[in-house]
């Protein structure tokens, strides 16, 4: 019974999400087979719902993998410079061929995100920062430097407007035909599941990985491939959604711990649920307008996180 609660919650949110919007659609309309309303459902509402679920799952899974392979629970694509690199990649793709397809942009973004994230993780290995808290700070700084380069190049080429849309995520523009790339996230989730134990071993450090016969660097690279792919797909389809990658894995971590095989699915589901909830809120707060999803995610996520932090849950014993 207890396990059914999240599923019921998720279903309720899904249904809620489908029936919120400018065009007033009621459930009975669908049964009456009203052509116009069914079209709105198929072209806009359902794609929106699916893209929200897929990107929420994607961001939180990318976050948890990043935390494992970086052995740091404050890492995520946003705090580890991955998103910034992906944006620089998108810009490069636009500059190289202004008519680049979404897929081409995604590939270039992926290459940048992959290289950049590996570089960041490598720098962190050399630097051996003493405090875990310093790693994401350096990551944010590093990301900002990359972001500054992106902005500069975009400014020089009159592409600022174009780039801003990749800075703030939005589901408002999701229509059928524009979000399907997000489905690549599902096989990536399966791949992450397959490597789950190896990522957990890698999180225990180089020595223990070596002892257990797990190849440290190749496992890290596979992790970065998954993270960079997920991030670049989300960036080119809906834009970046901050915070999910940190908040969700850390909430799940407090309950289930870090055993990735055990918590990957909860992380994915809760990630989808969370972004969906935030999207519903975004659409209701100033109806019929929308608050950018990034802001809602930030505010709600922060709130939940602070509550969990202060209300306890098992804390670190020092």
């Amino acid at each position, binding site marked *: 019974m207890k396990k059914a609660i999240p599923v019921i919650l998720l279903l309720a949110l899904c249904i809620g999400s489908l029936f919120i919007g400018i065009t007033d659609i009621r459930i009975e309309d669908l049964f009456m087979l009203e052509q116009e309303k069914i079209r709105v459902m198929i072209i806009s509402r359902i794609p929106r719902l699916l893209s929200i679920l897929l990107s929420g799952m994607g961001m939180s899974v990318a976050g948890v993998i990043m935390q494992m392979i970086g052995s740091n629970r404050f890492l995520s694509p946003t705090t580890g410079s991955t998103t910034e690199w992906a944006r620089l990649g998108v810009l490069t793709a636009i500059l190289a061929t202004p008519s680049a397809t979404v897929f081409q942009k995604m590939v270039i973004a992926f290459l940048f995100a992959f290289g950049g994230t590996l570089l960041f993780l490598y720098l962190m290995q050399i630097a051996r920062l003493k405090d875990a808290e310093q790693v994401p700070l350096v990551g944010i700084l590093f990301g900002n430097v990359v972001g500054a380069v992106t902005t500069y190049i975009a400014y020089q080429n009159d592409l600022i407007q174009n780039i801003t849309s990749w800075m703030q995520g939005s589901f408002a523009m999701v229509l059928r035909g524009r979000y399907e790339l997000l489905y690549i996230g599902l096989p990536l989730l399966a791949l992450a599941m397959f490597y789950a134990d190896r990522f957990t*071993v890698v999180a225990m450090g180089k020595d223990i990985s070596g002892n*257990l*016969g*797990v190849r440290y660097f190749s496992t890290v690279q596979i992790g970065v491939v998954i993270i960079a792919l997920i991030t670049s797909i989300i960036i080119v389809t809906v834009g970046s959604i901050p915070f999910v990658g940190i908040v969700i894995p850390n909430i799940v971590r407090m309950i289930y711990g870090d055993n990735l095989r055990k918590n990957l699915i909860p992380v994915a589901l809760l990630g989808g649920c969370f972004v969906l909830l935030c999207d519903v809120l975004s659409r209701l707060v100033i109806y019929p307008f929308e608050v950018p999803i990034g802001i809602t995610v930030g505010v709600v996520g922060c709130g939940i996180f602070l509550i969990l932090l202060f209300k306890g849950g098992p804390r670190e014993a020092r």
Partner: protein
Amino acid sequence: MIRTKNVGKHYGEKAALADISIEIPKHTLTTFIGANGAGKSTLLSIVSRLMKGEGEVLLEDKPLSAYKNRELAKKLSILRQTNHISVRLTVRELIGFGRYPHSRSRLNKQDEQIIQAAIHRMALEPLANSFIDQLSGGELQRALIAMVIAQDTEYILFDEPLNNLDMKHAVEIMRLFRKLVDEEGKTIVLVLHDLNFASGYSDHIVSLKNGRFLRQGTAQEIITPDSLREVYDMDIDIREIDGTRFCVYFK
């Protein structure tokens, strides 16, 4: 048997370890002793394949580099001394990862039994379901030792396994190591700072100084004032109680 042939490790010009050729006999408890910076941990790391060095290490007459990762992980295990683990696993999950080289993610009944036995041997039952980030240093150390024991390899290497442990647990663990060697035919290699533990429990002692090999032999041969003066540059009084040599170096 583990054999090292001219093993060394250089950092630039500086040699942390040079020209070590030793034999670690099978079914024995071997201890490396030496002052800080003698190269004990470096040697252990190279023997365990976690560190690359010069020269060659032979495990049962086959070079370490010729083993596949997973194959080696079923034959030889190592626990190093610095383990900053920031991963939130339960003690049981952590120990379960010791079975990873054997069964990957699919733990069978036999694995579960081995895990349970390792928990029992380290007396970790009350903590089995606690998260390791809530443990004290000594408890974590025992959990890590239990993980290596669950890995159940023929050769087991420990770098200062008694770190963070109180006297009771230190003695229990040394007794367990002895038992693993005597009853289960394991080969255990330790780096120890406490000479009395080395003297009381080892079959074989290797002494090192400034990255060079000094001597190897039984406790009777190595725990002597002359030999220890070479190692530590200090005079150590040696008393024999019930056949075991004890070093008195507190005064």
